[in-house]
């Protein structure tokens, strides 16, 4: 990266934004060091708490503006859980709600210039993804006992194909947490790298004002992607939960 600066190429490397830096000083990063990651994680959590604490304080029949936003989140996720998992899934609604709101806020706060996006770190999304995987697997065995393994044994398939399908199903089951976490991190990381690449074209605006439309358009796309990725992560959690509650399709 340094040699590119020397060559007079890109001044800001598009991937420099993902470097974890301590907030104070230049020391090594320990587990207790306050870094830009922990700062933006804390801001995301504080924003979540603020929205729901302030939103549920009034409890007006005619909701205030903050309350109606909080109710919008609640109703949206509640309906999603109910539609995908059925009535039994509603018990696990708080977990899914927490995941959605946390990802939503860390995605959107990362769109502020000079901020850091915690969800672009595979370490953070892997904790979320493997957390869902372990929770769902344990829940499946607790709820169904050994018959949870029926998830891998297709009763409708021809008898010869069943062992082959079982192998494929087992592999796809264990790839789930990997793809679940890498999808979120990869989308956010790729999106922010593209944003920075387009921001590098900003100087071109002096030559041709059309460049500004490109930046605005790609930013709009990112706003869309941030919402969709939070939605996709949550609905896949719901689908995995449904598999644990009803393994026999």
């Amino acid at each position, binding site marked *: 990266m340094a040699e590119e600066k020397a060559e007079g190429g890109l001044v800001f490397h598009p991937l420099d934004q993902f470097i974890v830096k301590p907030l104070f000083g230049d020391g090594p990063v320990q587990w207790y060091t306050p870094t830009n990651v922990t700062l933006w994680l804390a801001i995301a959590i504080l924003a979540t708490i603020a929205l729901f604490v302030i939103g549920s304080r009034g409890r007006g029949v005619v909701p205030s503006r903050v309350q109606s936003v909080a109710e919008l989140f609640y109703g949206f996720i509640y309906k*999603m859980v109910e*539609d995908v998992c059925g009535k039994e899934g509603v018990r696990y609604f708080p977990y899914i709600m927490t995941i959605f709101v946390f990802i939503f806020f860390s995605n959107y706060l990362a769109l502020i210039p000079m901020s850091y996006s915690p969800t672009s770190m595979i370490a953070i999304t892997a904790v979320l993804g493997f957390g869902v995987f372990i929770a769902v697997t344990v829940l499946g065995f607790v709820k169904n006992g050994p018959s949870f393994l029926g998830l891998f044994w297709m009763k409708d398939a021809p008898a010869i194909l069943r062992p082959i399908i079982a192998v494929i199903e087992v592999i796809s089951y264990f790839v789930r947490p990997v793809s679940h976490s890498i999808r979120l991190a990869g989308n956010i990381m790729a999106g922010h790298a593209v944003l920075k690449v387009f921001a590098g074209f900003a100087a071109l605006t002096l030559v041709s004002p059309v460049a500004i439309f490109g930046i605005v358009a790609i930013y709009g796309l990112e706003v869309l992607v941030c919402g969709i990725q939070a939605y996709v992560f949550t609905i896949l959690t719901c689908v995995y939960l449904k598999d644990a509650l009803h393994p026999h399709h």
Partner: protein
Amino acid sequence: MEGELAHIGAGLAAIGSGAAAIGVGTVAGNYLAGALRNPSAAAGQTATLFIGLAFAEALGIFAFLVSLLLMFAV
């Protein structure tokens, strides 16, 4: 020499993004075709649409990840 080969490999891995684009286009196009034939059933299938998009897109993201690894980690 190895660095140059890694960059060529990163470029080759980027072909995977195009393949994912074909997949995403197939999902969205078929959804739209079905939705125009039976608009009343379309609203109930948006969740399935997004799940399909996510699965198709994940493989493109894997390709992107491979090229990033080749560029910066190898």
